[in-house]
């Protein structure tokens, strides 16, 4: 393919390289960089993109559609769709073939049911004091892992805060969402529902070592109650009971307590020192050593994070 060809622009290789580089003839007035050069001033990145007007948007989209609708692109798109479906079906078939060799579902002799789970079930109650073996496993044997999970949630909330932060009281650029603040039905329903959901969430957290549930599920329920309250009564009233300061203090305090408590139990465990934390009678609410307190910590972190996600996406602030 020589570049000397006269109809080079219509040749396959040029079209292919256009496709690969995403090249598209953009006229000057819609081209952001040229527009910037024409105005001949230094602007910040945010202003730079806010200079796009709706008309520019529409024009750009038309150009883009024209680019997509060219015959060559159509052909590439169709080929891409067919190839991706074929690839997906191949992956499903290979995985199904593998599944057919897996040990039978629900068989007690499966290799996954080995001495590890035997140890957890037979000695878990004595060693952790938790009736719920899963809670004993994740908050005692594997507590370090759960600490990491809480930190992952906290760091995710920090990342969303960095990305969506909007400290000025200006409305967001695309604020056309419906504000439910004045909805009387929602307000009355929330008045009844929020306490019930909150109490249920606290129950699930506090009974994490006795029954199904625990910090993560209970925290998610409490977060749902907070979100419902904020939905019904607006952020001004929410800020009276839950502001950014509360968020910081609760999350930091919970993570710090978790870290210190588990450091103590790791220290005593590794040095064969007798831990002073009593295990209590299994089945009582104040039993199973640290698990109850760790569940409360995890629940607080999860509830704060869930509410934080909601309010950050809604208005860019906690």
């Amino acid at each position, binding site marked *: 393919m020589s570049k000397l060809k006269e109809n080079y622009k219509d040749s396959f290789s040029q079209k292919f390289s256009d496709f690969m580089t995403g090249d598209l003839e953009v006229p000057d007035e819609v081209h952001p960089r040229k527009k910037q050069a024409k105005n001949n001033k230094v602007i910040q990145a945010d202003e730079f993109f806010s200079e796009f007007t709706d008309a520019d948007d529409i024009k750009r989209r038309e150009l883009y559609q024209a680019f997509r609708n060219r015959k060559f692109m159509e052909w590439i798109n169709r080929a891409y769709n067919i190839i991706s479906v074929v690839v*997906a079906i191949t992956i499903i078939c290979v995985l*199904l073939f593998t599944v*057919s060799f897996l040990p039978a*579902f629900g*068989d*007690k002799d499966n290799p996954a049911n080995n001495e590890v*789970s035997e140890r957890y079930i037979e000695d878990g109650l004595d060693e952790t004091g938790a009736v719920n073996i899963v809670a004993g496993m994740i908050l005692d044997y594997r507590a370090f892992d759960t600490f990491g*999970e809480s930190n992952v949630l906290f760091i995710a909330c920090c990342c*969303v805060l960095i990305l969506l932060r909007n400290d000025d009281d200006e409305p967001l650029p695309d604020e056309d969402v419906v504000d439910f603040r004045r909805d009387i039905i929602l307000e009355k329903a929330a008045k009844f529902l929020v306490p019930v959901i909150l109490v249920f969430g606290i129950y699930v957290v506090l009974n994490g070592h006795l029954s199904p549930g625990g910090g993560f599920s209970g925290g998610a329920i409490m977060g749902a109650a907070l979100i419902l309250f904020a939905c019904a009564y607006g952020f001004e009233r929410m800020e009276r009971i839950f502001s950014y300061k509360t968020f910081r203090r609760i999350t930091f305090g919970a993570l710090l307590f978790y870290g210190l408590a588990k450091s103590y139990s790791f220290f005593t465990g590794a040095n064969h020192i007798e831990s002073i934390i009593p295990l209590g009678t299994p089945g009582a609410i104040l039993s199973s050593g640290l698990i109850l307190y760790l569940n409360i910590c995890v629940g607080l972190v999860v509830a704060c994070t869930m509410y934080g996600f909601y309010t950050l996406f809604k208005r860019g602030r906690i």
Partner: protein
Amino acid sequence: MLKEIFSHLMTNYYETAAVIIFGIGFTTLLLNKNLIKKIIGFNLMDNAIYLFLASKGYIESRKAPIVVNGVRDMEAYINPIPAGLVLTGIVVSVSVTAIMLALTVKLYRRYHTLDIDEIAIISKKGGI
């Protein structure tokens, strides 16, 4: 041969369903250019993995691993380990989804579109 494979698949029906959901999620990821739909496909794949893990822990005619009436025999309860693993997975997937959605919001505010190809073209042309 095929008949044998099919009968095995019917025995392992939970795993079969998980694998098929995984495939659907993967296809969604490949076929859609909309970022939100891509995130939905990603979450479908996550959920397929949880279904697979949870089904690996199940044992026929045994109960959830919560000690009742002091029965502490291994023969009485299902495997508790996959439950803990699924918990970890759910938390990580929630965090990852939140960050992906935040990035999508940010991209939409800049480029006024969710189409990933369009964003790629504009960002190349615009230089940012």
